[in-house]
């Protein structure tokens, strides 16, 4: 039994390997990029809109609204990063309805790469928002004793992001594979439908957690309430 789509190898030459993870990731990237390019080629400003434009507008404004509700003040700034994370993880799990497809997020390499993107993006946005000094002092924030714990939590939440997504996707694929050998007809379909739901929930959670981490890093000191003026 396979633990991840890394083990399906389509083409190999020397140390160059094309496994299923890379191929399906490229396929998803192509579908997402070409699809949105096709939709946004002819945008209309008046009431007459194509249904695909309506769909994309719903997706984009929905993601921006969710980011805003987490506590980030300018959602448009983070929309590119967080929206891409959400769309990639969501389409990776939604495409499991295609036969012969394995979600690339079921490989630890993909999820580790996504989690590393979050790991880099959090200090990036934090420094951009409050400067290097302001960001670094957030590590020693209630007291200096908390410094090692803050650093450990930074590392462990990256690990948790990667392993959570990997474990959910891998367990979904594995349960379907096991059920196919036990009860071949009906139950795998039910579990596939359940897998679509968990895939969407995981995509939501991954991007929301990234948004929460970025919001925690970019919280400026202005958010503290001003002391009331003396009467």
């Amino acid at each position, binding site marked *: 039994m396979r633990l991840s789509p890394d083990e399906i190898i389509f083409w190999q030459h020397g140390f160059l390997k094309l496994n299923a993870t890379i191929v399906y990731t490229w396929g998803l990237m192509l579908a997402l990029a070409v699809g949105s390019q096709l939709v946004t080629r002819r945008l209309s400003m008046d009431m007459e809109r194509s249904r695909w434009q309506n769909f994309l507008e719903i997706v984009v404004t929905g993601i921006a609204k969710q980011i805003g509700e987490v506590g980030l003040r300018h959602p448009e700034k983070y929309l590119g990063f967080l929206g891409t994370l959400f769309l990639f993880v969501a389409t990776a799990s939604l495409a499991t309805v295609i036969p012969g497809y394995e979600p690339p997020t079921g490989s630890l390499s993909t999820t580790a790469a996504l989690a590393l993107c979050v790991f880099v993006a959090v200090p990036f946005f934090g420094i951009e928002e409050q400067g290097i000094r302001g960001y670094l002092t957030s590590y020693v924030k209630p007291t200096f004793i908390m410094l090692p714990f803050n650093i450990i939590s930074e590392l462990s939440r990256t690990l948790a992001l990667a392993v959570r997504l990997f*474990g959910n996707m891998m*367990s979904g694929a594995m349960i379907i594979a096991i059920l196919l050998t036990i009860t071949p007809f009906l139950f795998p379909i039910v579990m596939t439908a359940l897998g679509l739901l968990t895939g969407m929930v*995981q995509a939501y959670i991954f991007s929301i*957690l990234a948004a929460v981490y970025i919001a925690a890093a970019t919280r400026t000191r202005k958010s503290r309430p001003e002391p009331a003026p003396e009467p």
Partner: protein
Amino acid sequence: MDSMTIIAVASIVIAGITTGFGTMGPALAEGRAVATALTSLAQQPDASATITRTLFVGLAMIESTAIYCFVVSMILIFANPFWNHVIAQAAGK
């Protein structure tokens, strides 16, 4: 029992125990979290968006502990380093 049998038995048994006990705590915790969230949803339907979002994030945090246990037992069964070592030694003989 030679060492090969001991490693095989220990891996299989511990893999089962890991998932069994490791999902017990998160299951109780998620049940409590969902029950409390339903109570507060019934009391304050207006705050449903905030409650649902916080609930999902919290459930993901709780669930990740169960996922860790699952990943550990999957490693024990399918990618066990000790077992691979024993196999490599047996092949080398």
